[in-house]
């Protein structure tokens, strides 16, 4: 067995185990920490696919910022109320969403299939050039979206404070 295959097996197992932990653990804080494990394993898969930049972005954004914001929100809410969430009315919706996603991915996998084994490392310069030339409009739109979100947060918190 080659090294990359062995590593992939380990990472996939960790990722799936983390995902299972998220949905099975009754404690919300544990769920958040399992989510961190799962997301970091995804970063490892990106490294195996030679997408190092994406892997680091995954660590920085999900491993750092998103999980922290999640834990922050958890710690600022009253933990007694959310300590053991094992059942809630959103279950059918969640099943539906998961089934749809699974269906789409399965169809894509069957139709597209694995396309050969050659992986190419795209270096940062080419990535940056593409991002700021052919993809500059989507890039700017994302920037505007983030700005709107920021302004929205400021407005919402101010309105609450004044009441």
């Amino acid at each position, binding site marked *: 067995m080659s090294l990359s295959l062995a590593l992939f097996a380990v990472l996939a197992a960790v990722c799936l185990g983390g995902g299972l932990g998220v949905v099975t653990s009754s404690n919300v804080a544990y769920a958040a920490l399992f989510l961190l494990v799962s997301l970091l394993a995804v970063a490892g898969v990106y490294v195996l696919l030679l997408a190092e930049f994406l892997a680091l972005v995954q660590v*920085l954004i999900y491993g750092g910022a998103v999980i*922290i914001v999640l*834990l922050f929100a958890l*710690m*600022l809410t009253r933990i007694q109320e959310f300590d053991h969430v094992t059942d809630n009315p959103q279950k059918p919706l969640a099943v539906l969403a998961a089934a749809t996603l699974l269906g789409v991915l399965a169809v894509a996998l069957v139709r597209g299939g694995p396309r050969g084994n050659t992986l190419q490392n795209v270096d940062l310069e080419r990535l940056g050039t593409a991002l700021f030339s052919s993809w500059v409009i989507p890039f700017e739109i994302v920037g505007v979206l983030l700005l709107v979100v920021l302004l929205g947060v400021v407005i919402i918190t101010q309105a609450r404070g004044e009441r």
Partner: protein
Amino acid sequence: MNWLDLGLVVVGLGLLLGALSAVVLSLVWLERKFLGRLQMRLGPMVVGPYGTLQSVADGVKLILKEDIRPDWADIRVFWVAPVLVFVPIFMVWLTIPFGPGLVVQSLDLGLFYVTAFLVTSIVGLVMAGWGSANKYAVLGGLRAAGQLISYEIPVIMVVAAVAMLAQSLNLEVIVAKQGALPYAILMPLGFFLFFVSGLAEVGRTPFDIYEADSEVVGGPFVEYSGPHWAVFFLAEYINTFAVSILTALLFLGGWNWSLTLRDLVGLDSLWAQAIALAEVLIKTYAIFLVIVWIRGTFPRIRIDQLMALGWKGLVPLSFLVVLLNGFYLFYRLPEWSLVAANLAVLGGLFAYLYRRAQTAPSAPTIQRFPARELRRVR
């Protein structure tokens, strides 16, 4: 990449762990001695000549100490947290070079890798605070999350500005690109911002509000003792050393200044490597001493001041640094113009701070709520 490469990396990491532990022992001794000097006392003197073995003795004491866990703590989270703090901080060192070629694994995205992993250790701090089931620990964990997330932004922006100038994220290339003119001279504003927000990222004294003894009695670490507390301690010093060496590499020209000396002994010889290593270490320890000096001089700032400084001061200024570098690179302006622009902003900043310090505060900056108001659910 094959099994052999992986084995070499593992061996390198093992060597690094040993070296860093030795470095931490020296840092602790140095800090206590230097703080002693600043406070007109001797510092540790009993164990070993000039107290040099004091930190070894402390380490032995910590490891032999009873490991206490509060009965009501969340066992799993409580024990995993120190590992989660230590691992990312240690992983950072994978790509930090001590000299030309003196690195475990040179990565092309090295600088980005370092900033990404420096941030991840916050999760461990928050977990430590939450898992201890202690109100001060939880408050400390929350403080850590807020502080580190906020000060991460200026660090990343200044690092991006450095990468713009060097046209690379590889730390060795960045050092090589600096040549005779280190980035501390080319972009003094960026140097200042990186140092200040770096101090906040590692929670050293003017910014140590998440473990402030007088406010949250040790923050996330209150309930830890013995070996597990030692892991946090080790992580904190390794992190401080990382920020020091990053400042030396990114802004002070790393191993560039000894180039003529290394040329004399032959650039590829072992002596040249040793000289380069010595230069990097001297710069790093000098920066560490400045950090200790700051610790011995400045009082801890308040939490609202910390947030205000981060979001109203350092974040906009760090965006300005990127902007200035962009103008400089795009219009191919002469070097002195970048230096002049940086110095002008920095001068204006200090003038503003000085004038603010001279005038007494007109009104209390803390908003006071009656306790009944706070208890009401909004």
